[in-house]
């Protein structure tokens, strides 16, 4: 019996996780989301950007993730856009990942109508640009060289949002939402290091520990880690969304995994004692 428990068919474990997640997603129960300092830092910096009065505050959001990270990172994108639009901050969106444009467009199309924001005047989608490092370098030196037109063919110097942008450092805040290595290998190494931009990040939970060194050195002035970070940001902007809804499921899943680990260890110790007695 103990041996069967120790070597249980993994499909039972999958079934338990499935039931827990479905039940938690269907349950309508509020959950407290404490705010961590890296997320607070992003929020505070956005608030400071919104206070700028000598020019229309404009931020750049780089959507560098694919559909696989949609569940974790898309809520961050929506929360950031809601925060920016609610404070009158203009947003330019771009993609360095080839599978990101669909998600970026969906984010703008979801949030912009909520605030009656007008394309061109309040936000611009620049589209996907291949080249990685070259794109960041070009933007750092001459924005119109990197993006002469937006994703729809409009010249960027004719759009109110990007008309005054001549290079990357003209953006008041650059936030990169990443599921890969674009933060450390592109934005920090080339954007922040060379052009001294104000850089914030949003990453999947598994990548967050890798970003802490950049937080400590100040190369990143804030970080939104994973679904929990997205839920914290939704709480800060007082607009609970998908991330807050997912926190319940995530919390119960973590509890289920911890309980299964404890259960497995109990069975292990029992089997070890049995083997010693034998």
């Amino acid at each position: 019996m103990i041996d069967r428990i120790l070597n249980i068919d993994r499909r039972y474990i999958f079934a338990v996780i499935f039931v827990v997640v479905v039940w938690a997603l269907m349950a309508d129960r509020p959950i407290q989301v404490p705010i961590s300092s890296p997320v607070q830092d992003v929020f505070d910096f956005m608030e400071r950007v919104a206070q700028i009065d000598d020019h229309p505050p404009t931020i750049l959001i780089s959507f560098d993730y694919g559909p696989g990270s949609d569940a974790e990172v898309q809520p961050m994108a929506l929360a950031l856009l809601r925060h920016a639009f609610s404070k009158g901050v203009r947003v330019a969106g771009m993609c360095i990942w080839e599978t990101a444009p669909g998600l970026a467009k969906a984010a703008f199309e979801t949030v912009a109508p909520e605030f009656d924001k007008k394309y061109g005047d309040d936000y611009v989608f620049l589209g996907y640009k291949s080249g990685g490092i070259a794109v960041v370098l070009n933007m750092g030196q001459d924005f119109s060289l990197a993006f002469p037109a937006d994703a729809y063919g409009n010249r960027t110097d004719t759009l109110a949002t990007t008309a005054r942008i001549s290079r990357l450092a003209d953006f008041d805040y650059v936030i990169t939402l990443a599921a890969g290595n674009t933060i450390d290998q592109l934005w920090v190494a080339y954007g922040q290091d060379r052009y001294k931009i104000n850089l914030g990040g949003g990453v999947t939970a598994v990548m967050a520990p890798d970003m802490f060194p950049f937080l400590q050195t100040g190369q990143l002035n804030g970080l939104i880690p994973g679904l929990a970070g997205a839920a914290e940001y939704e709480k800060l902007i007082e607009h609970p969304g998908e991330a807050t809804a997912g926190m319940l499921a995530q919390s119960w899943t973590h509890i289920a995994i911890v309980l299964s680990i404890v259960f497995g260890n109990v069975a292990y110790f029992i089997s070890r004692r049995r083997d010693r007695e034998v």
Partner: protein
Amino acid sequence: MSVALRHKTPLMLAIGLSMFWAAPKAQIEADTSVVSRLAGFAVPADLAAMDTPNDAGASITVIWSKAPTAPAKTNYEVLVATEPHGPWFLGGKLAVTGHVLSDEPAAFGWNADSLRHFLNVSEYDVNSDSSVAIEDDRTYHFGLRVVADTDTVVFTALSASAEAEANWFNWAKLNSLILGLAFTAITLIMIGAARKDPNLYIRRVAGLDALDDALGRATEMGKATFFVHGLDGMSSISTIASMNILSQVSKRVAQFGTTLKVMNRDPIVHAVSRETVHEGCIEAGRPDVYKEDDVIFVAPDQFAYAAGVDGMIVREKPAAVLLMGYFYAESLVFAETGAHAGAIQIAGTDSFTQLPFFITICDYTIMGEELYAASAYLSREPKLMGSIKGQDLGKVILLAVLVSGTVLATFGFDMLTRVFTNL
């Protein structure tokens, strides 16, 4: 240049103001005789201009003394002209609380003072809609204006001139260059030493030692060995390192006569893998064993690659799975599927985020630089072994610097910290 300061009555100030505000915003006529002193505010006594150091050109740095006290909301405005007496255009603004020389050690050194402000001017506004970039090798003249509370203007008669030029060397990165050259020298010296004494010791790497066992197991069971490349392209060091391992693996598999299937996500890696496996078979004296279809370009998309490889693992149940390269989220998908298929798994990656998954699930894990040392470890070639020893020596030196730098910094001596700071 000389500075002229005169006290002005409020009436004269109003006249002066009206002269400024009547003019179009961008093109400002500088009246060097109109100077006013704000109560308690000392107008900067000097102004200097120089080419911005360590840049690609088209930028001039303007420096002036910081005022000991200043009214709230006071801004400095740097004015630019192509002729000594104007017309003047706005080149940039800096708040009176703005950065000083000591805030930018990359440009001014670690011992720069905090008594002077600076502003890098790369363009100036000719009107409200357009600006003109600074050109290299052209003389520009600079003036300084102080604006306080939007209704008081102070203009100094100071001016300075300079030319911008592109710099050939970034002196702020000199420490990095010296350290890089030093490490290169150490590596080359150790390679030379290894040529003279080929019997260099490298500690055992369990994952690399287990390669033969894994391939032997596959041979005994009559099943295939899967070699799964990471997601990065050929420019990634980990991919190059994994190619070294593939070279050795393909030779041994050819000798044993078993099947090796190589999974690729990048087309260039796929092309190199084909050549590597082919060469391995030729070197083993078994060119007939090579099958082009066994080196597979699965898919360029991350999870399509994971799905394709997993499908093959589940259907063909290989005896050994070698996961080598830089992995992302799909690492757990590979490892768990391989574990479920009953394969012996050896993973090698320098991806910090995926190492925990491999360590918990795979039988052996080659971590970080152990992967880079694979070529030397498996081939035992003196030149390669020498570079590993050079790398180790570099690490010893860094550790010594780390310890001594920590001790010195604790007592307030940060010279060692500065040497290793990347500006």
